[in-house]
């Protein structure tokens, strides 16, 4: 495997809590949270691309997690923003409501980075203790640290 495959996953922003009632609104807030990130060339285009992708197939992973994402030229590097919904909501075909949302903006050529991030998150969230701890954390620092510990222990 390449270095990309072992690269740590860093969140560019965390919304804690994420106050949204609908999927579209949640995505809007998450995109806005990284709108000022230098890697985001066009926040509006990123938002549109993510909605288009959601239309194609919903991105709920199960385990109360959704990972809306899009490969788009609107970003120059992989950007990730996480959020914990104050009030869980339905997300596409998921059988259970979603509480955690991790939004990814992926440059067109960063396919391996994207797959690595998706795999890492999926593995981390399969551990129920991680989600339980994320349920309880109070600050964005704790949220990020919990996630970092979970990824590190994979």
């Amino acid at each position, binding site marked *: 495997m390449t270095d990309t495959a072992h690269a740590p996953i860093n969140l560019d922003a965390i919304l804690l809590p994420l106050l949204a009632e609908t999927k579209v609104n949640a995505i809007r807030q998450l995109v806005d949270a990284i709108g000022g990130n230098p890697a985001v060339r066009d926040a509006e285009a990123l938002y549109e691309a993510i909605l288009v*992708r959601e239309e*194609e197939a919903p991105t709920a992973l199960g385990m109360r997690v959704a990972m809306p994402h899009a490969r788009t030229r609107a970003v120059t590097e992989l950007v990730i923003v996480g959020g914990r919904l104050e009030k869980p909501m339905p997300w596409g075909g998921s059988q259970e409501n979603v509480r955690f949302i991790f939004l990814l903006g992926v440059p067109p050529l960063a*396919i391996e980075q994207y*797959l690595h991030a*998706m795999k890492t998150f999926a593995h981390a969230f*399969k551990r129920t203790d991680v989600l339980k701890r994320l349920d309880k954390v109070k600050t964005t620092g704790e949220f990020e640290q919990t996630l970092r510990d979970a990824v590190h222990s994979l």
Partner: protein
Amino acid sequence: MNELKPGPDSMGAKHFRLVVFWLRILARWRPGSRQILLLMALAVGVLGALAALTFKYATLGIQLLLTGHGEGYVETFQQLAWWQRLLVPAVGGLLAGAVLHFGQRIEQRKATDYMEAVALGDGDVPLRPSLIRSVAALFSIASGAAIGKEGPLVQLAAVGASVLGRLRHEPPARLRLLVACGAAAGIAAAYNAPIAGALFVAEIILGSIAMESLGPLLLSSMAATLTIRSLDSPSVLYQLAVDQSVPAGNISLFLLLGVFCGLVAPLFIGFLKQSKRLFAQIAGPASLRLAAGGLIFGILAIYHPEVAGNGQSVIRSILDHEFAWQLVALIMVMKVLAVAAVFGSGAVGGVFTPSLLVGASLGYLAAVLATALGVNGVVPEFYVVVGMGAFLGAAAQAPIMALLLMFEMTLCPAIILPMMAASVSAYFVARSVSSESLYGESLRAGPRSVFDKAFGTITVRNILRPSFAKTTASSAFGEIAARFLRASEGVLPVTDGKGIYLGAVLLDDVRPYLKEADLARSVIAHDIMRDDLPTLSADFDLPEALRTFGQTNYETLPVVDTVNGQIIGLLARADLFLVVSELTRRDGVKAT
């Protein structure tokens, strides 16, 4: 690592385990199109050897039925009464002719010779006409006719390769190479000579010893030889009972022997062609001509049964000094007449081995002459072997193949230097006398194929791989992984619901993640496809296709119909190069 586990809606556990097993293999190592071609070359080699064995034992069975004997043809004919020597080949010819005649009613298509299919065609060797001709050859050969079995045997191996390639919808360039592999396997199996098998095809038919084509040929020959060696027990064809080397001073004599063979070989070829023309004048069905040929051969066999068969046992006898030089000369003349009668009558078979006997006789006579002139250190066995190689090299216009064949047939390193001198001189003398080779006819007249078109008129549409795996943008990752298992290329085109090309998923991008169950549903083709992959228009000519490949490192590109945007195939860089090199070769052949 977390891997796929059977879900509630998954397949049966056994099938599931199989899929996981292949995904693991695929994730670590998945053969590209080039590796698949090499694997197919191996399979073709095994198939070719099995075809050779089947043909060998079928011939033996019919020989037993026709003659009541199962020994070599010369020994068998020596035990037959004079009238049987006359009748058996005539009946064999009649039966062969009947098979061809009635076969033509069943199958209208003309059998495509494997040489035509490779040298001129696009590798399409129809199955039924080839089988009919092989059955006809069985009767001719089993009745002792002075003709080689390597022709039909190689044809069988080649048709097996062609069928395999067509089943896999291989594009023309690849199909052609596979048929060439089949032919190489047939030669290797017939003579227990893997290198010569590959070189025969490379030198005579493909006209190229580029590794791109020679590699598969060598693998195929190797597989055929290994198969034959494990199922049959072939020994060194001509064991030389000498352990000395050739004195350096004698090399010039071998050069002269080569010159002599180079002068005689075109005469031999011309005589065979003349015989064909004479037989063509006989009106009536093919069976009549074949029976007439068999009858002439039978008359010769009444006096000299040594003319029977392909000549292998006579060569052994010459090497063992069983014949006086006068008898060797007589047998050679009789053999040439017999071969001309059988071959000229239209019998299906080869003249490869019979021409070796002519060369062996010339070599032996040269050794006798050298001894008579007082030359020291003359080893007749060397002259016999070198004569064989030089004559074959000149007749087939393939000196390298002849050199290696002689080495593999004798496994005697001492013959290499004299063989080099003789085969090169024989080749150049023969070329200066006539450009006609044993296989000239097959290499000139053949089926029309894509390669007959002018370079500038061939488009990508003519040479693409039309059968390929593809997926849609919303296909889940699990499905993509499964499709890569079945795909022969590392590119999986992505289309919309109407077949319009959107992009392609590359195996190299996703390989480490193929077995990730957690991605099976959350990732779709749209997430991982590349839309920047260059595409080829189906209407691109070859220079345009070469330019497109020149601007990218991708080994395979999608081919798109520019009118409707639909994907219609894939084209591999290696296949494009094979086509271009073949067109260049044929242009060169036409120019000469």
